[in-house]
């Protein structure tokens, strides 16, 4: 198996179909972002997955887990709340495997997400954007409760989500690095952080600091009636996190541009936010490796103007669900 992997590396591998080609993404050092010589910053380019995001790993894991348990068969409709990337990944995989897909998505995401979902043949049900992703989760749960013919993988509560990283992303990083001082990823469903954290702590001990970068959503998408309407994804175990730091939309976009300008990495907004925290953590260290996740590429954000306008002139900065 190892020999096979090594032979595959120069061209990224040979696979029987696109779904099998998910993963095995490059790990790239970002020397210009490193604040000091002894600290090396590495970006895991999950943007190099077939639909351009880390969610390809999760979507494959969710579907293959359901297939293995006999919970779905071709022709059955899959229903899932998402604000974009998971839906796009599921759409590609479901189309290839013969499952109709219905996604529930806030109505204030970038237009490219809608276009990509339609391209892959998914049906979209829009939720109230003022409730952010909470609104999509709430509506999808209602729909699933009302119609038992749907199969909802429910990435927020399905262990197949973190297992995609425990058995995939983390092992790939460990193949390349013997030492990891800090791992930084975005906090959404918690899958990337939980799966990688468990593997790294098991293999390298508690010396690996697990750091969550989380979005500080703009006030217009904090549309809760009360704090009791809040939501914590069931797969999140806070005890695995050493730090949890929020990043504003403004700073996330500033750093998304820095990734492009200084390192040539064309990434989405969450990756900019995560990079900002990776550099901050690197600045607190004297030596070691800091690994962070580049979650998706920048194509889905072009219409928003984040790459072409000054950040203060980006429209709908606080009314958009960026990540």
């Amino acid at each position, binding site marked *: 198996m190892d020999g096979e992997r090594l032979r595959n590396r120069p061209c990224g591998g040979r696979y029987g179909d696109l779904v099998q080609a998910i993963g095995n993404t490059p790990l790239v050092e970002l020397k210009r972002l490193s604040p000091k010589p002894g600290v090396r910053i590495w970006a895991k380019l999950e943007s190099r997955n077939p639909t351009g995001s880390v969610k390809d790993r999760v979507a494959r894991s969710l579907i293959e887990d359901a297939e293995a348990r006999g919970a779905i068969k071709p022709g059955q409709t899959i229903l899932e709340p998402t604000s974009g990337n998971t839906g796009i990944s599921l759409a590609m995989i479901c189309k290839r495997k013969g499952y109709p897909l219905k996604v529930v998505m806030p109505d204030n995401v970038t237009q490219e997400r809608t276009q990509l979902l339609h391209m892959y043949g998914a049906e979209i049900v829009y939720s109230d954007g003022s409730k952010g992703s909470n609104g999509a989760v709430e509506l999808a749960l209602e729909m699933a409760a009302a119609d038992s013919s749907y199969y909802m993988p429910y990435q927020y509560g399905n262990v197949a989500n973190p297992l995609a990283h425990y058995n995939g992303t983390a092992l790939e990083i460990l193949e390349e690095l013997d030492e990891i001082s800090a791992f930084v990823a975005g906090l*959404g469903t918690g899958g990337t952080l939980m799966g990688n954290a468990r593997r790294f702590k098991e293999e390298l001990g508690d010396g690996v600091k697990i750091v969550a970068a989380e979005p500080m*959503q703009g006030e217009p998408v904090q549309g809760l009636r009360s*704090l009791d309407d809040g939501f914590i994804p069931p797969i999140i175990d806070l005890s695995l*996190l050493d730090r949890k730091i929020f990043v504003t939309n403004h700073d996330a976009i500033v750093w998304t541009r820095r990734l492009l300008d200084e390192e040539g990495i064309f990434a989405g907004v969450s990756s900019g936010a995560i990079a900002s925290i990776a550099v901050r953590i690197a600045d607190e260290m004297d030596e070691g490796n800091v690994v962070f996740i580049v979650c998706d590429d920048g194509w889905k954000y072009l219409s928003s103007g984040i790459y072409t306008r000054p950040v203060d002139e980006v429209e709908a900065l606080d009314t958009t669900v960026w990540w």
Partner: protein
Amino acid sequence: MATVKIPPVLRASVGGEKEVSADGSSVGEVLNALAAAHPQTQSQLFSAEGELNRYVNVYLNDEDVRVLDGLQTAVGESDTLVILPAMAGGSR
């Protein structure tokens, strides 16, 4: 005095203010001072046992106090506490 930033969902309980000042040398003391000055926030911020309510995230400057020292986390005079509701992640 520390500055406490209030999310939209709690503003009606503090007279519409976006931020208020409150005394205290720990997160728990600052939030208790806030609750004493604005009693309507008490049941929203704290459980009956005096713990932070499950869906309330409190950040010291920008770090979640739950992964620091919780309500015992030390607070300085010029620090900012940010209260945010727990929300589902976005595109992730």
